[in-house]
């Protein structure tokens, strides 16, 4: 076996790949040859590191030097200085990885130090396309333990003991789900991995599959053993090409190693996995719609009951778990359900991966123990709000979650707490909004998404969400009335109560929660016809004050040509001709405001 004095890890997740990490890797390999150290330094392309804001990311071990925003042109210097001469290139370090002169290792950076990684433990550590690296990290040990040492019933008991709940959104106890699936007898049963991640901004499932595909394969095989199934499906959206490719590689490798396929590890147990590509409909993340899609039909939810555990794919008992749920399984088997249950809160055990987005410094993926407060996530790990803006709200649970306010910041995150304050865990999206965000507009934005993604099957979701959005359109256009707020509330409640599937039932959540917590903002739109954050264009007015010096910069940039000098009148203060905006023609693009010389600031928006 060859030994290396240094390992360079380059992120090969979707984010960093789009930041040219493949080219960075190629350049790195080229430069290592140039400096003749290609046999001393090993280059590894890993899965996602999580801190996508700092991408493309490169980490050099053994010391854990954390380079951020690496570009192809930086590679030569890193090779020459760091890898050849042993001098760290400080200007390329992640800003928190340098404390005055002291270089801080990647694991000690606050973003990582405060996390507890179980599902993501291999992401950004191993080469996902190499099964040996997974094996070296105790990979497939759990499967070996299960197949050689445990009865199916014991496996289910261990999962039940762990308290693991579904990470896809609803939070149903995983062990119970396995038990149900195992209790139904049939000639065929299926295990299905739901990798149809659809929440905008959420990408934990993708990152897990890109970073540690074998974890999911191993877990599905364990689930197959526990529930008595021989066949697994991974339903993944075609928009995740890297994840799909790595899954394909991983499945092949596992089969080559006898860890998947017929007579796994020479036991009597056989299990095979097939990948099914989805076309990217949000509703296909709903388990019954997913099943329809796997069967080749249009992805439309079925009524429940019967639940998939009884009648799933092709009408057979089916266990469906989300990617992140599966990713926790090997660790639970190896370290025990009790260990997992010791993490988290009373009813929500273990950790949860969140995708931080919106107005937050450290956008990316974080895995935290359940019970961590929102404040800790947003201000601690997330680094707070950029540009010293004030926090206004955080949306959890994706487009069908609710918007929470500053008063909820100290709520420990778990399934039940989030629901009790009007939001939900969802798949773990977390979108932070600052003081510049209009909550009416945000509600409308999320509704727009669910409207588009409704499958059109049931009346409340197909017709209702559209009408909700139309009322919001009316409000942001300045035509709303007080009655419209009642109408919104009633219609939102109706949809929640009547829609066929969870997508429909949760679609009005953004409206319900913003109406509850930000009613004053709605009132401002409806009564005063003003948008307090100046986001809703139709409620804005640009006017030129008497500070105008008549330079005409604004008139030059106005796309409507609606700014002209006000007759021949001369401004008494500035002794120049005053300009004026024709409000009827103004499209409120704001170009004039930008064009007005900073020293003059004659144009105001209100």
């Amino acid at each position: 076996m060859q030994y290396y004095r240094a390992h360079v890890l380059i992120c090969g997740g979707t984010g960093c790949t789009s930041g040219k990490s493949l080219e960075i890797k190629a350049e790195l390999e080229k430069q290592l040859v140039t400096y003749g150290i290609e046999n001393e330094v090993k280059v590894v392309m890993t899965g996602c590191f999580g801190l996508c804001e700092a991408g493309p990311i490169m980490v050099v071990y053994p010391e854990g030097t954390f380079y951020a925003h690496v570009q192809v042109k930086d590679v030569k210097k890193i090779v020459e200085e760091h890898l050849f001469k042993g001098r760290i290139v400080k200007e390329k370090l992640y800003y928190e990885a340098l404390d005055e002169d002291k270089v801080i290792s990647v694991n000690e950076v606050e973003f990582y130090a405060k996390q507890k990684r179980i599902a993501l433990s291999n992401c950004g550590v191993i080469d996902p396309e190499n099964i040996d690296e997974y094996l070296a990290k105790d990979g497939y040990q759990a499967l070996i333990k299960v197949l050689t040492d445990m009865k199916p019933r014991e496996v289910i008991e261990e999962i039940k003991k762990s308290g693991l709940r579904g990470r896809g959104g609803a939070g149903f106890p995983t062990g119970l789900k396995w038990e149900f699936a195992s209790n139904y007898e049939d000639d065929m049963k299926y295990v299905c991995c739901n990798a149809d991640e659809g929440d905008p901004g959420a990408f934990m499932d993708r990152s897990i599959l890109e970073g540690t595909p074998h974890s999911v394969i191993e877990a599905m095989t364990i689930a197959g053993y526990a529930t008595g199934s021989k066949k697994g499906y991974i339903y993944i959206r075609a928009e995740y090409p890297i994840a799909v490719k790595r899954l394909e590689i991983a499945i092949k490798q596992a089969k080559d190693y006898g860890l998947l396929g017929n007579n796994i590890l020479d036991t009597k147990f056989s299990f095979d996995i097939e990948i099914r590509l989805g076309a990217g409909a949000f509703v296909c993340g709903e388990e019954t719609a997913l099943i329809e899609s796997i069967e080749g039909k249009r992805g439309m939810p079925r009524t429940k009951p019967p639940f998939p555990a009884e009648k799933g794919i092709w009408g057979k008992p089916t266990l469906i778990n989300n990617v992140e749920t599966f990713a926790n399984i090997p660790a639970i088997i190896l370290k025990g359900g009790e260990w997992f249950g010791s993490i988290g809160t009373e009813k929500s055990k273990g950790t949860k991966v969140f995708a931080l987005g919106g107005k937050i410094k450290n956008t990316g993926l974080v895995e935290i123990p359940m019970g961590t407060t929102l404040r800790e996530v947003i201000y601690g790990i997330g680094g707070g709000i950029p540009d010293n803006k004030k926090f206004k709200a955080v949306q959890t649970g994706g487009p069908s979650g609710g918007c929470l306010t500053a008063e909820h910041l100290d709520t420990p995150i778990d399934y039940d707490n989030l629901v009790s304050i009007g939001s939900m865990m969802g798949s773990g999206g977390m979108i932070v909004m600052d003081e510049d965000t209009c909550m009416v507009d945000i509600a409308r934005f999320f509704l727009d998404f669910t409207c588009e993604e409704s499958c059109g099957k049931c009346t409340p979701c197909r017709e209702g969400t559209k009408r909700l959005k139309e009322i919001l359109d009316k409000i942001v256009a300045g035509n709303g009335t007080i009655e419209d707020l009642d109408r919104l509330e009633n219609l939102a409640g109706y949809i929640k109560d009547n829609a066929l599937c969870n997508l429909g039932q949760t679609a009005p959540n953004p409206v319900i929660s913003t109406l509850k917590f930000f009613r004053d903002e709605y009132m401002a739109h409806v009564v005063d016809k003003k948008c307090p954050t100046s986001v809703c264009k139709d409620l804005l007015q640009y006017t030129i004050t008497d500070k105008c010096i008549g330079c005409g910069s604004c008139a030059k940039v106005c796309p409507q040509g609606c700014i002209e000098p006000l007759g021949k009148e001369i401004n008494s203060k500035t002794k120049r001709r005053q300009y004026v905006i024709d409000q009827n023609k103004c499209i409120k693009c704001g170009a004039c405001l930008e064009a007005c010389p900073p020293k003059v600031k004659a144009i105001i928006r209100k």
Partner: protein
Amino acid sequence: MNVKVTIDGKLYEVPSHYTALDACKAANIDIPTLCFLKELNETAACRMCVVEVEGARSLQASCVLKVRDGMKIKTNTKRVQDSRATTLELLLANHNKECLNCDRNGKCELQDLAERFHLKEIYFDSFEKRTPFIDDSSFSIVRDQSKCILCGRCVSACEKIAGMSVLAYTNRGFEANVGTGFNVELDDAGCISCGQCINVCPVGALQEKSHVEQVWDAISDPKKHVVIQTAPAVRAAIGEEFGLPIGTSCTGKMIAAIRRLGVDKVFDTNFAADLTILEEGHELLDRLQNGGKLPLLTSCSPGWIRLIEQYYPELLPNLSSCKSPHQMFGAIIKSYYAEKTKIDPKDIYVVSVMPCTAKKFEMNREELSHNGLKDVDAVLTTRELGRMLKEKGIRFNELPDEDFDHPLGEYTGAGVIFGATGGVMEAALRTVADILTGEDLKDFEYHAVRGFEGIKEAELEIAGNKISIAIAHGGGNARKLMDIIKSGKKEYHFVEIMGCEGGCINGGGQPYVNSHIRNEGIDYKKLRAQVLYNEDKSKEFRKSHHNKEVKQLYDEFLEKPNSHKAHELLHTSYKAREIFPIK
């Protein structure tokens, strides 16, 4: 096994296979439904039937919710009431409410609900509506998207009854529609024009292509000699248009009523059904005796003809070359009858009153004309006839019974039963058996071919010959049977196929049977079929070859079955038809 459920505070005991909807019905509570059709469309999509169930977070669709012991259901809370009203309001807001000139006016299930809920206001009426679109490309069916409420019944009927899946959901969200693949015109999408979608549509989104206007024009044209022929299944259902119970025989009243429309002659397609049996029966005998292509497939149902032309062109050589009865009739009227009455065939206008929408397509086939004249000039559905009679103010129920015109008005019991699945088979067997045995058999009712099982099979021994037969009805069953035949798993001599489930009595042009009747489990197909079997029993002559007027036709004009002249007038040819043609 029974379970105990509490409905609105009262305890009931109901069978455990009941749904909450069934249980409520048993408790004399009629829960409104819209998309629900028992065993056909159990999708819980419309949400009209929601109820409160203790322990459930959201309201539950009662149509698919199985009862459990101890279940507590509430149907009369404000939450339930308001929800249903809002659902209806949302549907109405996105529905083209030009009810007064809708074909479905007065028979619309959505209208019924609107009446039941008497909404004060439809707030969202002024909001956006789905893009209206009318597809009238088909000779048979017109789709009006502005009236569609996306209940999905037609989608289920097309998939499960017709076996076609030509209609399916397209697009998403508010833009979701029922449409064809790639949004091609219905005629290009593999539709067989069976019209089962029309029969299940609760509103006026699916309609037959009307021929009413052109028939009125012909009647009022003094130069035209208008001849109307009626298919057997029409008499079994036309009474429903006038409020008579399902299964009322209306042969006499129907003739009287049609005569009062001002037409010149009223004939019975049954006459041609008898003619068909002689032609098709001899074709079968010929194939049996001379080693022709077997099984012989019947060709009376134009929906079925479209199905085989589009989906099983390789089996076209098996198809009988006989035209369907009403087309034979048209050809005879414009030749034999014209000759006899000395009327120029160009002045004769043949109208077929049919239980069928596919006949509207069929009458436009190029092959079905003679000397440049179409065999049939217009096809009215049973529903359209009902509309015309109502428009004319004819008090149908009060009319005396009248008889068909002669000649060409006589028919046997064998002709009548054509309207039910298995009827053509039975009629053919009655004649073929007599020919093969050379006797006038007394035992000629073939009960094995009756009934509504999807595919019926029997093996008969007639004069020492083993004859293996099969019958399928509805496109879905027809496809199953064709697949069996293609695979060679089974061999038959004679196969009857009808494009509609139950045969013509349940054709796409028959009076609407609204969902509350269907969901009651009333077997309307059986009731209608019984009318035909009763009429069969009541006839003096019950075998086609005993029809004197048919015999007269052969003697005076056609010579003998399958003669040259018969082939010219009564037989046709078929061709493979492309689905989704590239234009």
